[in-house]
């Protein structure tokens, strides 16, 4: 029976279709270019393009600075934050086999929120110094997830993901309660806290990019390396173990990597909701459910999506900015419903 040539379906076993990778790279590239061409300050797009490709333009020094020192770092930050949140979300959904899992599932958002609130409230104006807020958010997020992990392991044994998720819910509620209380006790700082909670891509130049890049890179490398392992974990712990995988250890590594990326993203951008759920699910509907496709494509399309959302956030009501979390939800939700309807698939169960 070995004379039969490998049939067509086997070619599909290598599941990440090159066409989709190309589409993802193109989307991220186009979103980035759009982010450079348009913004609060209206610069002639044609001249910006001439400046970018280096053929000399009529832009003033100030206008060149807007492109290179304000728009460019912001575009890069959008790609990084969007890619990291989407990738982490896809990994969380895979590792917990739960379609509603998002990067904040184990309490990262609540921990970051509490950390930032405490810093702003206690340091007042000084709390907004670059450096303090990201640090507080990062420590809060990592601390909350660690707490959820310890509580989950203590109450549910080492194999129970349900115990871990419930512990995350408990930690998140608890920390949110403290955060809300502290916030209510300090009405004068409420605006600063609120602005941070809604999320934004800052204009702090390259500082935030440098802060985020190492964590985003480590998180992405580890998660992408585990894309096949996530497919194996999808058959449940017992079967994964019978296939030679250590489910507990793999899950721990994936959760740690996704949390590290999420915490770093949150620390520079605040709580941008929705990206970590909508992008991976859209990718699943369009390009298949294997993590070998979902992980890299979520990263590319997540970056593109957040870049475009940020473009809308800073131009729709210019010179004011709309919180980016409002834009991601306002445009993301209808888009997602459209994709769902067009695929006529009830696969979100």
């Amino acid at each position, binding site marked *: 029976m070995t004379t039969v040539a490998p*049939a067509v379906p086997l070619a599909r076993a290598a599941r990440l279709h090159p066409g989709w990778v190309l589409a993802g790279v193109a989307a991220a590239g186009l979103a980035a270019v759009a982010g450079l061409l348009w913004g609060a300050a209206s610069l002639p797009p044609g001249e910006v393009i001439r400046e970018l490709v280096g053929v000399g333009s009529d832009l003033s020094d100030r206008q060149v600075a807007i492109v290179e020192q304000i728009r460019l770092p912001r575009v890069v930050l959008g790609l990084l934050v969007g890619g990291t949140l989407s990738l982490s979300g896809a990994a969380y959904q895979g590792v917990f086999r739960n379609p509603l899992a998002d990067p904040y599932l184990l309490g990262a958002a609540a921990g970051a929120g509490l950390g930032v609130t405490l810093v702003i409230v206690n340091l007042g104006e000084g709390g907004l110094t670059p450096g303090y807020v990201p640090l507080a958010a990062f420590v809060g997020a990592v601390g909350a997830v660690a707490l959820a992990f310890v509580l989950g392991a203590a109450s549910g044994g080492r194999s129970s993901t349900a115990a871990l998720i419930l512990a995350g819910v408990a930690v998140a509620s608890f920390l949110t309660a403290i955060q809300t209380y502290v916030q209510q006790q300090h009405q004068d700082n409420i605006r600063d806290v609120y602005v941070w909670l809604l999320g934004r891509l800052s204009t702090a130049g390259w500082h935030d990019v440098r802060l985020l890049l190492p964590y985003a890179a480590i998180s992405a490398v580890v998660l992408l390396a585990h894309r096949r392992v996530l497919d194996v974990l999808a*058959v449940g712990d017992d079967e994964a173990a*019978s296939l030679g995988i250590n489910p507990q250890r793999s899950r721990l590594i994936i959760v740690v990597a996704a949390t590290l990326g999420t915490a770093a993203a949150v620390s520079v951008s605040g709580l941008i909701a929705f990206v970590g759920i909508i992008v991976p699910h859209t990718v699943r509907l369009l390009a298949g459910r294997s993590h070998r496709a979902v992980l890299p494509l979520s990263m590319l399309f997540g970056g593109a999506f957040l870049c475009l959302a940020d473009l809308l956030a800073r131009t729709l009501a210019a010179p004011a900015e709309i919180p980016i979390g409002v834009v991601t939800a306002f445009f993301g939700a209808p888009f997602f419903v459209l994709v769902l309807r067009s695929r006529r698939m009830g696969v979100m169960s």
Partner: protein
Amino acid sequence: MITCQGVSVRLGDKLVLDDVSLTVPPGSWVAIVGPNGAGKSTLLRYLMGTVRGVGEVRLAGQLVAQLGRRQRALQLALVPQSPVVPEGITVVDYVLLGRTPHIRPLGVESAKDLAAVHDALVQLELVELADREVTTLSGGERQRVLIARALAQGAPLVLLDEPTTALDVGHQQQVLEVIDELRHDRGLTVVTTMHDLTLAGQYADRLVLLDRGRIVVEGPAAEVLTEDNLAAYYGARVRIIHDGDRPVVLPVREPRIVRDRTS
């Protein structure tokens, strides 16, 4: 060949397996039978190393506890009774999961892995279905897909937990014939748990009857499947008919005494 010695497993307060010792010679088929809750599935899980207890298991003389997970997966494949089938996964991708122990921990499959998958699909006549989603298949097709995954794993020993439950009688025979064919073609050693005693007697070389965690009878079908044994351990009223040297287990019903109410 797999042997286990003095295996006891406690789940909560209940002693599910009590000092079980078993030898499965290479190339043979052993069926573990017994009433519900006797510990059949737990014994398989202990052999797989997915449940904790005392007692040693040896694979070809080597202690399983000393093997790494991948090493064990290369020796021992499992066909679970109620597998978790990921939503939307195609037959070829599902069978490819069986190659996991052959693939470097963070690597991807090689041409050799794809060839093994292809062989398994051919052998189980699944090539036509390779692109279908596993969740859309019929019970018999799905069972063949599960066996194909175990086959692609390339382990010399295959454990099957209730491989024929939920199949109609024709598909039960088909699946068991496939397993028997693989056993002879590839020299596999097979351990199954089974509910259908007649089928167990027809396909397995030896039957092991578990009751309340202990092995109570073991041997060829004719010795295990007796009216007395089935009455004692299953609480069943059966008649044993002999089809050649194979016992056929026939449940019987006593006629109910109907009182005549008119008198």
